[in-house]
């Protein structure tokens, strides 16, 4: 990216996590859509390659239940199992192991929730589970808050990326503390993926403009009136925000500076 006249980052700016490279900096979830077909259409529109899934019991009493895997081809998308809904390190480790046993990969989006109402992470249990799973050879992507100290400890514990929230899961409140997110990004060596809280395209763009490596979102797409159209908007917003960051924005100032020459004016 030495060319100062470059007009697109397409193909030049992959997201690299652990030993894998992704062309899209947008990671999307698969929850809360109205149908499997809509899920897949939205993911395709988003351009995301990495897609999160949850691990849950098969319902033996539901006849002809269609599996998500019938619609999501693991050859087309990189499936990232999560440990959503786990409240202890032990449970999260158990779910992670089950997710790995599908044979798709040994990656996990690690969530250990500390409070039902806010769905904020239990950072102590998160660290413990990160250590255990890293030792077992997992590539661990922990969902955490925007606290620098926790993020540094997760990195030390072997996390392949750190995923701080923009705002609470499913809230759509957008990026509440850009300062903290920039601080995390400036201090961590592993990628920083903002996970949770993005509500609309401007949130995604603003988040990427902070210089983070990527964004993970689910509800912003699934709960939009037109999920596929919103997915497309998010694809563009993430690209725009990333490009703007890489372009290096102009400095702000309090008062006007003329864009046209102040000399050569008529008498």
């Amino acid at each position, binding site marked *: 990216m030495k060319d100062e006249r470059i007009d697109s980052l397409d193909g030049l700016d992959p997201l690299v996590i652990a030993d894998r490279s992704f062309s899209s900096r947008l990671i999307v979830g698969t929850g809360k859509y109205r149908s499997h077909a809509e899920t897949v259409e939205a993911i395709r529109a988003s351009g995301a390659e990495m897609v999160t899934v949850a691990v849950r019991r*098969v319902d033996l009493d539901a006849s002809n239940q269609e599996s998500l895997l019938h619609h999501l081809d693991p050859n087309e998308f990189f499936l990232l199992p999560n440990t959503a809904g786990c409240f202890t390190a032990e449970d999260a480790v158990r779910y992670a192991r089950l997710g790995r046993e599908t044979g798709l990969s040994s990656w996990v989006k690690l969530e250990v929730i500390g409070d039902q109402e806010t769905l904020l992470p239990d950072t102590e249990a998160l660290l413990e589970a990160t250590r255990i799973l890293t030792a077992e050879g997992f590539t661990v992507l922990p969902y955490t808050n925007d606290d620098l100290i926790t993020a540094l400890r997760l990195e030390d514990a072997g996390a392949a990326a750190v995923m701080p929230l923009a705002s609470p899961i499913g809230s759509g409140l957008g990026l509440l503390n850009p300062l903290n997110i920039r601080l995390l990004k400036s201090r961590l060596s592993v990628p920083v993926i903002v996970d949770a809280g993005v509500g609309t395209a401007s949130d995604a763009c603003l988040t990427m403009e902070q210089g983070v490596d990527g964004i993970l979102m689910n509800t912003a797409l699934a709960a939009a009136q037109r999920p596929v159209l919103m997915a497309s908007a998010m694809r563009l917003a993430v690209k725009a925000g990333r490009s703007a960051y890489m372009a290096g924005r102009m400095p702000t100032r309090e008062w006007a500076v003329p864009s046209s020459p102040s000399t050569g004016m008529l008498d």
Partner: protein
Amino acid sequence: MQVEINGKSRVFVAGGSILALLMEFEIDPRLVVVERNREIVRRDDLDRVEVEDGDRFEIVQFVGGG
């Protein structure tokens, strides 16, 4: 024989391996992961491990999630 699957008591009529159990309940073994008495059963072992009376199974799959 009597087993527990996903928290509910079930009758496994045919008996035999875990693979046979999945067949009886019309579950595609390629789409699920099985825990038997809290231990994950590797996919290659599903037809080798015999189900015993009172076994407790968790049978899970990928679903939509964020």
